[in-house]
């Protein structure tokens, strides 16, 4: 199994989720993160001075999927997050040795 980790722009979440649902991928864990990268942050005004805030709020999606679904999933994420503008995000794929569903004790593919 693989862990697909995607860093995306927050407002794209709904589209991504819809697309993944269609693929039958419902399980996912999401965190709010701060991204640093090529995309510029923003400036903030504070009593007559401007400050550059260089992080950008992002969402990190973590999905464990069986190997044969990785490409589909990556495809679906890209399709729904790509705008062509800097900061669209990244996808990382890593290997997962084992998965357990706590409720049943099922493991690996059965547990996803």
């Amino acid at each position, binding site marked *: 199994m693989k862990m697909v980790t995607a860093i995306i722009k927050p407002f794209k979440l709904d589209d991504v989720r819809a697309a993944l649902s269609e693929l039958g991928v419902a399980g996912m864990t999401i965190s709010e993160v701060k991204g640093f990268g090529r995309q510029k942050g923003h400036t*903030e*005004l*504070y*009593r*007559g*001075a*401007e*400050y550059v805030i260089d992080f950008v709020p992002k969402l990190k999606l973590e999905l464990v999927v069986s190997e044969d679904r990785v490409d589909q999933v990556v495809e679906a994420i890209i399709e729904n997050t790509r705008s062509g503008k800097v900061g669209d995000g990244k996808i990382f794929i890593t290997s997962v040795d084992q998965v357990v569903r706590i409720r049943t004790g099922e493991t690996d593919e059965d547990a996803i």
Partner: protein
Amino acid sequence: MKSTRLITLLGLLATPFSVLAGNEGLSGANTAWILTATALVLFMTIPGLSLFYAGLVRAKNVLSVLMQCFSLTCLMSLLWLIIGYSLAFADGNDWVGGLSKVMFAGIGEDTLSGDIPETLFATFQMTFAVITPALMVGAFAERMKFSAMLIFSAIWMLVVYAPVTHWVWGGGWLANLGLLDFAGGTVVHITAGAGALVAALVIGNRKGFPGTPMLPHNLTLTVTGAGMLWVGWFGFNAGSALAANGDAAMAMLVTHISASAGALTWMTVEWVRFGKPSVLGIVTGMVAGLGTITPASGFVGPAGALVIGISAGIVCFYMTQLIKRKFKIDDSLDVFPVHGVGGILGTLLAGVFASTELGLFSGQGFLKEEITSIGQQLSVQATGVAATFVYTAVVTFVILKIIDAVLGLRVEEETEISGLDLAEHEERGYSL
């Protein structure tokens, strides 16, 4: 009629100690309004100013600021009862009041001050003695030791605030000169501003200042506090009429106009300079407008107030830049450029717009009969400003240096990094 008002004002402000038996001589209406005004001025500090400041610091210090404002409220109140009021308002000399009113001696339910109960006058004034040191909290926020802060403020109130109050409102030398300070431009704002500036210099900048941006952690608190300050300021200025009459009403109106004008002006300057109007900008301009109208509020008319508010917005904006960006002095929440400068500006402009000879921009006239021209009045105002500023700055410096030597003013660096809330108070602001 002007002279009637003059006499009333002098009577009320300078020597409010006639004692009558029973309720004879008591004005229920004035009492009703000053009871309310007292509640409003307390409201300015807790929660008004507390929230205004609390939102501006970083999340790790939010409680320390709230704690400082709250504990000052309590401590100054007790000190005022014990001796502060006497030093400010008991019969004394030109410089300081005597000890005849220690522990409010001789002040019963039926003692009057003018036509309101003296207990009420003293409680109303107590809320002024509370907010003045609380204003300074903004200067040394995020790095001063809580214990040192308490001791400093206690001494400061007794040796700076109470005497200056006596000079201006207690029958002291500035009152005799004919200084116009309706609600505390010198007494409150210049003392707090000068104290703040000196405190920021003596205590030193926050670690990381000015390189690291230290942005407000919760502007909803700040805007909430700003609204409360505005509302409470009606008690501060219109309450200083010590009566429910046309003076009070006019003071409320001009207060409101100056606040509005100061706010919109600051917003506009920002909009022009940075391309964006910010909510912190507009509320800061409001405070500038309010601080600046304070000394003038019983003397000027609405058109004068408009000019005063606009001046406040512009001057305080640039002074904030100057102090923080140019001189790199970490008066953290800009107490001096907003309150101190506002107080100075307002005290001077009161000397202009009180004049009855400015057409649309006329005010209600000067207090002292000998003063007949703006120039004369302005020189009195300038004397008041300079004396208050210099006295406050010097004494503040001395107090702080002594406390620093004995106890230390500043928390450990590690405490500053981890935040004062946990280190000084073992609490966290939020766990959402």
